[in-house]
């Protein structure tokens, strides 16, 4: 595991440039409003003069510029090239701040049935998490949770909203 981390570290620092030059997803979603239950929201909306602490959710979200979120097709949980680029940025951040821990949330759109959507959210959260682990992020620093269709980001009932809601979101666990 250690050896792999080292390789991943050097890899990701190389990848960092490429990842940063990429344009963020077309519709950049807002900073996630929904954080894990036991994660106190850090002051991303409170006006503070100090820079957000590295490893905090506010710091992570501003560093990601939307790359904290991975979008999925209906009923799918595969990682495409755009997702991979965003996950590389997440991994790079997590490797840069080795004490940071994160929750990967899995979500589904409302156009599904309750139980299946919970299972689908599990799949998506784990797909994103596994990709982060493959990039060298220690599994012990990542937890997953499925919210199924319970926490939509976009509230309209149309394709555009559903596309935003079929997602995984990586959220830093507060310290």
């Amino acid at each position, binding site marked *: 595991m250690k050896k792999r981390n080292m390789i991943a570290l050097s890899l990701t620092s190389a990848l960092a440039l490429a990842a940063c030059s990429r344009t963020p997803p077309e519709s950049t979603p807002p900073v996630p409003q929904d954080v894990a239950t036991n994660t106190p929201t850090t002051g991303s909306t409170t006006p503070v003069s100090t820079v957000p602490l590295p490893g905090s959710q506010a710091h992570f979200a501003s560093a990601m510029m939307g790359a904290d979120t991975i979008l999925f097709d209906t009923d799918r949980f595969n990682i495409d090239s755009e997702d991979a680029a965003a996950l590389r940025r997440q991994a790079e951040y997590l490797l840069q701040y080795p004490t940071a821990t994160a929750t990967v949330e899995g979500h589904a759109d*409302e156009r599904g049935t309750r139980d*299946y959507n919970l299972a689908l959210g599990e799949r998506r959260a784990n797909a994103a998490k596994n990709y982060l682990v493959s990039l060298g992020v220690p599994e012990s620093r990542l937890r997953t949770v499925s919210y199924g269709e319970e926490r939509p980001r976009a*509230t309209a009932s149309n394709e555009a909203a559903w596309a935003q809601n079929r997602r995984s979101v990586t959220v830093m666990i507060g310290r």
Partner: protein
Amino acid sequence: MKKLVFAALFFVFGAVPAMAQEADPDDEGGISVVVTDDSAWQDIGIAIASFATNRDVATPANANGTAALGFELASVVYNDLRFNGLFRPVGPDALPRPTYAQTTAPAWSTWSGRSAEMLVHGFVRANDNGNLTVGCYLYDVVLQTELVREGWEVAPGEWRRAAHRCADLVYSRLSGESPFFDSRIAYIAETGPKDNRVKRLAIMDSDGANHRFITNGQSTALSPRYSPDYSRIAYLSYQDGNPRIYVYEIDSGRQTLVTESSNPTFAPRWSPDGRYILYSMAVAGNTDIYRIRADGSGTPLRLTNQPSIEVGGSFSPDGSRIVFESDQSGSQQCYVMDADGTNQRRISFFGGRCASPEWSPRGDQIAFTHIAGNFRIAVMTPEGRNMRQLTDAWHDEGPSWAPNGRIIQFFRTEQGSGDSAIYQVDLTGENERRLRTPVGASDPAWGPVLN
């Protein structure tokens, strides 16, 4: 719960009852808003007169005494019977009030002119032990004869159960179907905006009465299922931040995890005998169905073992088979397996997706969510044949059977707002109506007839 005791009915001459108390029959109904035209079914007129009392005395069941309680008893019977499409009942507010003596000797001349073929009489009596005895009589007005009678001794707090038993007696005698009114529903009460919805576990009687919130809404609750003896509710809660099934004991308020595991568990289902609970558990993202003893003993048995999503599950009434959903074919479809996980085979081959299947308590049908554009409630045989859609709205989901297998509850979500309400429809697709609940409602789970 105090047991309902069958009581031999004695006839005692009593005081003339007081005049009918004020009552708005619409206040009693948990169910309202008739959606489909069911006039063709409403062919049997039933007059349900206020129940008489031998002596109008104080009772904890009604602040105005047993005579007023008799009126309320008849109102509950009336509201039960008026919503299933088989009958054209007339309630106590529109009828003369029989005397106690007339309970067993109807004034036929009064009733024959009221276009009611059937007549329900009853009485309520306060006993020395603090309980109530409620009698229920069904008469054929044309033949001027008694069809059936029954009586029950109930604690004052359970007076509505006696009324539901009376409605069940009438319904069963006239329709030939099994009873279902004396039963309860667990569901999820919903409040708040779509992106910050509060979801609470709640329970109510089959007519919406005795409504009670069980969780306070601090953490999301989903997918409740009553144990067959109504002592416990298995449901999903995010109370520790993760989706997990808890088994909540209604009397003590205590709850335990369905299984000690750090993996998320969801979609709880009881076996018909209450000995087992099915749950779905995701391990490293892969969801399969497991079976565990409801008392927590023994080790869980994994029933499915595929890399695809296998979720939910509903036992056949004899407990020998389980219908469940799986996307191993590429989309959600319904499958049947033996209760030990063997002999898995797909049964849904009619186009669209098959989700959240629920086996009828009568065994002859499986209700499910049919996804083909819109989400509709549909039924099929256990072999997957004779698929019939019972509803047609933007998003109907989560069927739950009435104890007698004649009616299906489900929840309907509105496009846009995401607001949900519980509806029910009968097996013919007729008599669709919305249940009245204090707030938004989803995930209905109808329990069996109470003992």
